[in-house]
């Protein structure tokens, strides 16, 4: 094989490989970090159950603890380092929700504690709450309609 051929082959090889591999690598990182964060949650949840708390309260405590940790990690500028590595792995768990509150609030701190921090906290969390709460209300209403139907049928 002469050098030109090798180079051409190599180029082809790179072209074939490069669009795919970052996604695969990112997915792997997201899987590991996301799974790890959920496992921390699971250990906390098992501990709450071990102490005799019920399921609903346990999962609330898990959310609160994970939010607390990620809010302060964001405040200390550590979370964005994890986020850069993990991508969706730290975005999708509830940690990403807490991060999405703190990071814009930090950025607009210079605009004051009310309209800076207080308002910008909700640039991402606001839409999440709007759509989440609206969806839950619709689910409740739809459930009510189906439920009354079943009651009148019986």
């Amino acid at each position: 094989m002469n050098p030109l051929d090798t180079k051409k082959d190599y180029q082809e090889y790179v072209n074939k490989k490069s669009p795919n591999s970052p996604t695969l690598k990112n997915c792997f990182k997201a899987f590991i970090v996301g799974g790890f964060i959920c496992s921390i949650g699971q250990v906390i949840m098992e501990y709450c159950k071990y102490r005799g708390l019920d399921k609903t309260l346990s999962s609330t405590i898990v959310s609160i603890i994970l939010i607390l940790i990620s809010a302060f990690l964001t405040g200390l500028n550590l979370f964005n380092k994890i986020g850069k590595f993990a991508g969706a792995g730290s975005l999708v768990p509830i940690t990403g929700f807490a991060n999405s509150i703190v990071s814009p609030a930090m950025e607009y701190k210079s605009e004051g504690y009310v309209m800076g921090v207080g308002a910008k906290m909700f640039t991402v969390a606001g839409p999440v709450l709007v759509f989440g709460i609206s969806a839950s209300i619709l689910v409740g209403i739809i459930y009510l309609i189906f439920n009354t139907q079943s009651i009148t049928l019986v």
Partner: protein
Amino acid sequence: MEFFQNLNWMMLLKCFIVGGLICIIGQLLIDKTKLTPARILVIFVTTGAILGGLGWYEKLVEFAGAGATVPLTGFGNTLAKGAIEDVTKFGLVGAFTGGIKAAAGGIAAAVFFGYIASLISKPKMKKQ
């Protein structure tokens, strides 16, 4: 230490795998579409609420525990589950009270700790 001896390792493994897989879905949305992180979070919450309303998400929670509740889809599921619970108790008004009641801990913690953490943070003057 008795707690760690009794830890359900099988459950932990299932939690890791399911939680990781949900994050892979998020990663694929980031890499393959032009959706912003905010939109992805909205999609996850809404999807969780719909799946929760259908009662499907609860099966995943039973299977994977925190692997299903910790991702933001679990937050949507909690909202929907709470709404359904209150609807059965109080009727129509329950659709408005139930969701936030069930997710109150998470929302309050996010607002409170979010504000405190922002106050104590040292903003780094680095524009991306």
